[in-house]
Each structure stands twice: as C-alpha cells, then as structure tokens.
C-alpha cells in the first residue's frame, strides 16, 4: 500500500493506493471456475495521531489496486503519523505507516 498525505491550512489531503487484485465473484468464476476464490478489500481505515479520521466499508466493485482519496479537517501537523489499514474478505490485512508532509 502506498500512502501520501499532505497538510495545508488545517486540511490533510490523503491519497492511498491499496495493492489488491479485487477479484469479484464473476472474475473468480471465470479465472478459476470457483466463485469462492473471490477476494476483495472489505474495510479500510486511516488514523492520524491515533485518531480515526477515515473509515469505509467496501464491496467487490472497487477497481483493481483501488486508489482512495479523501480529505480530513483537524488540528494535525506536519510529521504526525498516519496509519492506513485494510482488511479483505479472506481476513488478510495490511498496514502502512507514514508521516504527514
């Protein structure tokens, strides 16, 4: 996962790319013959300085390697840590930690 976050005038702009194949049930059936091989991100969240600032439940219809862009308003400064975590259907999880720029 790649995460970029910038602070400007009290607004944090975040751009994150989760590396994930995002197989829908249809793709899984076509490629492997078994719908149960579908796997996609089901939940993603972001925390800045240990505060949850972004939280989304997702379905199979996000693109492959989906890019999430969002903005956050709050008293955050350059150098504050941001952690983004996703969980997929099979229970795999991945986190990425970086700092606000």
């Amino acid at each position, binding site marked *: 996962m790649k995460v970029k976050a910038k602070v400007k005038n009290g607004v944090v702009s975040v751009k994150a790319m989760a590396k994930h194949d*995002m197989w829908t049930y249809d793709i899984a059936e076509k490629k492997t013959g078994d719908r149960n091989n579908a796997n996609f991100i089901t*939940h993603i969240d972001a925390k800045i300085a240990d505060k*949850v600032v972004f939280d989304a439940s997702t379905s199979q*219809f*996000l693109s492959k390697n989906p890019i*999430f*862009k*969002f903005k956050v308003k709050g008293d955050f400064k350059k150098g504050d840590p941001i952690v983004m975590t996703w969980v997929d259907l*099979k*229970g795999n999880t991945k986190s990425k930690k970086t700092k606000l720029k």
Partner: protein
Amino acid sequence: MQRRTFLSMAAGAFALAAVPASVRAEDFRKSKPTVWTAKSVEDAMKAMYGKTDTVKDGVTVVAPDVASNGGAVPVDVKSDIDAKTVAIFQNVNPEAAVIVYDLNEYSVIDFSIKIKMKASGTITAVVEGKDGKLYSGSKTLDVALGGCEG
C-alpha cells in the same frame, strides 16, 4: 491443497483476531450485511437506511461522461452537508453497493474512488445527513468496456 487451504484460513483467523475491535468505527459489512447482497439500488438503500426517498440536492457526483475502461471508473463525491455516512451505489453490477464511508468529526465530504462498472449505467451517491434526511446526487455515464469479468 488441503493443507494450503487450512494454512490460509488459520492466517486469516489470526489476522482478524489481531485487529483490535476499537479500530472499527462501524463495519457496515457486519452491522448491515443485507446492504451488500441487495441487487438494486432501492433495495440496498432500504437495507441501509430503511427508506428510499431522498432530497436530490446538495450532493455532487463527478464521473466521466464516457468511461473507456469499466474496470476503473473514477468517481468524485462532494457535499457540504453535515452528515453521518456517505454511500455510493450503481445500478449495473450484480449488486448495488460499492462503498460506504462512515464519517467522523474530522471528515470532509470530498472523496475520490475508482470503481468497476459492468455496463453503462448510473452512479448514485447518498449522503445521510445528521438531520435524518437522505440527500442524493447521481451521474449517468457510458461505459465502453465493462469491467466486471477481469
């Protein structure tokens, strides 16, 4: 093969257990599972909010008029409404729900996401205001190449 399945299941179970419950503000896949299996936008909205009547104002949905690749259609949702949740639905894939954002005190409704569209159709964004009303915006677009079969 069986061993591999077992191992991946064990790893999955461990990963789930390792994520502390406090991280979740609200996981709508668990709290409202029927939203994700609903076939139509109306059914998904009913499952999510218990109603389907929306104020068609105050929500901007930006997407290209013609998407060349249905596998990655960029969608922007913007709004100034003081809201609890933002959900994106579409009416061409096997199920309607795409993503539900759970908002908090820091949120600004200015989201961009890339979604899959199987065919030409309409993307609807619903903003659940703190006043209890639903606000929606939509965008109808042409998809040149459907994106659900990989």
